[in-house]
């Protein structure tokens, strides 16, 4: 059972109630159940979390670095998408 034969899982940890799960790293494991346990041992040693998700790395569909130009650059000059052109009324505290 060399490490090379074990599939890779991406690990997401929720730090506390109310926060979302955040990607913290990856683990090798024979299956998802063991991946959760390995993640517990590797990524919550110092009480970093209250919940763990794992996802098989092979199941993640990602954008490609080659597509960076067409994917992300077109948003660069569209400053009007940032909600900074409104005057916030004084009495509205939490907008």
């Amino acid at each position, binding site marked *: *059972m060399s490490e090379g034969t074990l599939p890779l899982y991406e690990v997401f940890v929720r730090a506390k109630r109310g926060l979302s799960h955040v990607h913290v790293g990856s*683990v090798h494991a024979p299956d998802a159940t063991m991946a959760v346990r*390995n993640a517990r041992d590797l990524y919550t040693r110092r009480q970093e979390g209250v919940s763990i998700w794992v996802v098989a790395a092979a199941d993640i569909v990602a954008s490609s670095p080659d597509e960076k130009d067409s994917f992300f650059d077109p948003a660069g000059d569209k400053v009007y998408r940032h909600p900074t052109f409104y005057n916030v009324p004084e009495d509205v505290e939490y907008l």
Partner: protein
Amino acid sequence: MSDNGTGGTFSAQAASASYLLGLGDDALVYAQSLGSWLTWAPALEEEMALANVALDLIGQARPLLTLVGQLDGTGRSEDDLAYQRDERDFHNVHLVEQPRGDFAREMARMLWFAAYHRELYGALRASTEPTLAAIAAKALKEVRYHFDHASQWVVRLGDGTQESHERMSAALSWAAPYVDELFEDDSSSVSAAGTGLGVLPSTLRPAAQVAVEAVVTQATLTLPPPSRWRSRGGRDGVHSEPMGALIAEMQHLARAHPTATW
């Protein structure tokens, strides 16, 4: 502690200390054994898992040994007890002092030991000694995880390939002769159970056995029949051959520099 097991003149307090020494030494020595997996585990993730278990066990051994030093009247610290005793003064069972075998053996050992530990600490939460009850309450959560970890692997190896099935089966046969000693009522545990501080090991066996059998069955394995030979004597300080080397490795730094601090 040299008069352990001779009965008669044994005070209740000394018996309690002797009982606790067995519990503390089981945890300490098993932690040392698990430490030998560092750089040898099948995967980095598993190495971390085994080290975590070992650290849990050291965390249990420390307050137990401290309590021993308070109860036996010698005032020895946890470090005195861990590093300044000779082999015959250790009261751990033989199972935990066996050297690292293959990974299946380690999981067989952890399955049995954690099953025992779960029942032990579950019962000790009701100890009349408040410190021991508190140690047990904290440790129970840890050893539940140890049992889970071992269960996961025993099932995967037993219900895995032909090779892993055979090796897991062989590992259970290897561990079997060491199991009886875990659940044996020696004089100090009888005395400690009598005062309400401790619990009779034999009363822990039925539940531990059921838990182990459930895992073994799920792993498509069967427990081996009783072996002709079984280990005995650990609680009286009589150990198997690997114990000397284990103690030497564990103690050599502290013995070479007796008053060193860092």
